[in-house]
């Protein structure tokens, strides 16, 4: 086969695969979008983050903080759904994600569950050579589901320090479901 005929499908495949390469696990939650009353779907790869960082003002203390944070992050991937009714997603949806967040690559560092409120929040970190190379969050409430993957050596404390900036509520008042 002529070399040219290989190049086109190869380029197409690479174009599809490369943006996913930075995402460290698959969400498989696309089917929930139809049931959700509010959906946030953000896939920001490294080049997009670096491009956005150029438009952050270094003289502004808040934006400078974000710029510093972005310098090491390789991607941010978020799916967040709000539902009008409970039971829109199944435990299997969460298990599909949890099954990918297994050791040795991933370890769960925090799990907060409330049987009464039906809420589960989990924080996972991905480590390589004792260094954090990724973070995953799963926040599941009866009418809400948020899954986050931050790829790259992210500092969780720096991320949490953004509290109080950009309209974020301070730690004391933090409550899910009150997104900006």
């Amino acid at each position, binding site marked *: 086969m002529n070399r040219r005929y290989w190049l086109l499908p190869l380029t197409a495949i690479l174009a599809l695969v490369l943006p996913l390469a930075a995402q460290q696990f698959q969400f498989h939650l696309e089917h929930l979008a139809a049931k959700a009353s509010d959906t946030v779907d*953000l896939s*920001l790869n490294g080049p997009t983050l670096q491009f956005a960082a150029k438009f952050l003002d270094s003289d502004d203390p808040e934006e400078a903080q974000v710029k510093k944070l972005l310098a090491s992050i390789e991607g*941010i991937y978020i799916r967040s759904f709000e539902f009008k009714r409970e039971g829109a997603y199944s435990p299997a949806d969460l298990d599909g994600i949890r099954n990918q967040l297994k050791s040795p690559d991933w370890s769960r560092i925090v799990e907060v569950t409330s049987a009464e409120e039906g809420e589960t929040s989990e924080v996972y970190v991905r480590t390589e050579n004792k260094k954090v190379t990724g973070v995953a969050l799963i926040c599941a409430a009866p009418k809400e589901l948020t899954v*986050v993957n931050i790829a790259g050596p992210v500092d969780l404390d720096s991320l949490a320090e953004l509290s109080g900036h950009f309209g974020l509520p301070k*730690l004391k008042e933090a409550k899910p479901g009150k997104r*900006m």
Partner: protein
Amino acid sequence: MDWLEEELKQALGRKMPPSDFASRVTAAARGRGSCMRVWLAVAAALLLASGGALEYREYRGRVAKERVLLALRITAERLNYIQARAQRPSHRPPNASVEVRQ
């Protein structure tokens, strides 16, 4: 010296231009003018295109920045919520369980 005078007279004498001289000069001048107009149009188009490209880049940058800030907002909000629930047992609902591995 008659032959020399004769040659000089001929060389320096008034000559009528060829019949198409005027039309050739006019055509050349018109050509230069239209060429200049083409270059001006090209320069203007380039200027507009580069201005548009810059504006579009600015727009894409602003959109990317807003998306990044939204992503960080959502992430920080969730992290803070989890931290608050994990660190403050008094704020925990009665049936809550917390597991923290460091």
